[in-house]
């Protein structure tokens, strides 16, 4: 096995895995609370592998949103993977790795692994970059699947106080990783736009809030940024 895989897995199995596992224990417990089956819950982590999308799925299902609205909201929340993938792959690409490997690696792209690989890949030999990312993200994925199952199974035995605290770790984790990663003014403006319009749309039409809040909030941030950079 290439040393890149081992290095990636080794670096993932510390704080990144611990934090994600805690979040997925909360997600599993939330999903159990809302009444999804254990298999559906595990399947959601396996095939979606994006906690925000999974939270949208579970929360919208519980509020009885139309299926088409759930599907649209989940896929729109995953639009970020397009630019993330486009920007990450050139950093991992090497002639030794075929396109097939890249299509497999793409499924594993999510916030934590993306941030880690963007930071670490330039230090590694070209041929070890893709293995590093796959090792890192695959380890996180497997730990998260296990944590989802664990969270689901212990949901009933968790005291209500700790259950809500586990679930609370999901938005908390996103808040920290978002604010910690918001390096540019445009990122900050987009986050703020979403933070304003998302909850606002939630008051008007809860099932469309993620979609509409993101489109309006993001577009306002984009427009303001364009105007500001044209004048500045």
């Amino acid at each position, binding site marked *: 096995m290439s040393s890149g895989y081992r290095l990636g897995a080794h670096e993932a199995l510390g704080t990144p895995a611990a*934090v994600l596992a805690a*979040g997925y224990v909360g997600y599993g417990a*939330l999903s159990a*609370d809302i009444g999804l*089956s254990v298999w*559906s819950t595990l*399947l959601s982590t396996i*095939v*979606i*592998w994006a906690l*925000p999308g999974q939270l949208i799925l579970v*929360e919208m*299902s519980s509020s009885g949103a139309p299926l088409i609205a759930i599907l649209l909201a*989940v*896929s*729109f*929340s995953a*639009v*970020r993977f*397009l*630019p993330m*993938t*486009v*920007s990450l*792959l*050139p950093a991992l690409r090497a002639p030794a790795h075929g396109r097939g490997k890249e*299509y497999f690696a*793409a499924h594993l*792209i999510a916030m934590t692994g993306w941030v880690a690989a963007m930071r670490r890949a330039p230090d590694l030999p070209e041929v070890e970059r893709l293995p590093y990312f796959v090792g890192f993200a695959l380890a996180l994925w497997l730990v998260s699947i296990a944590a989802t199952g664990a969270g689901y199974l212990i949901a009933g035995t968790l005291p209500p*106080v700790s*259950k*809500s605290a*586990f*679930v*609370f770790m999901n938005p*908390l984790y*996103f*808040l*920290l990783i978002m*604010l*910690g990663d*918001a390096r540019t003014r445009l990122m900050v*403006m*987009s*986050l703020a*736009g*979403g*933070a304003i*319009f*998302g*909850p606002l749309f*939630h008051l008007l039409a809860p099932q469309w*809030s993620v979609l509409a*809040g*993101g*489109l*309006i*909030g*993001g577009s306002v941030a984009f427009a303001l*940024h364009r105007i500001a950079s044209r004048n500045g």
Partner: protein
Amino acid sequence: MAETLLIAICGAATYLWRGLGVMLSGRIRTDSAVFVWVGCVAWAMIGGLTVRILLMPAGILAETSLPDRMIAAAVALLVFFVLSRRNLFFGVGSGFVAMIVLSLLQRI
């Protein structure tokens, strides 16, 4: 069964963006206006979702009070940015502990 199908379709829809990214990577400029805009919308969606869950949660989180959530989030932000040099483990962990302590205090 319908539930499993919906999740499978949601998974396929999520992968679509990742797969499309592989197809386009190397061929498309990541600094074009459309890409910047798509990134803005993605950040706004995640920002909006996160703040909405903190302010107006559904399900079990709705049982916690708004002041408790705000205080616990403030503790996590303080530990993450000021006290632990951006250590996610300590940041999220402190918010978790704060939420448990606050919830227990409510019961007294």
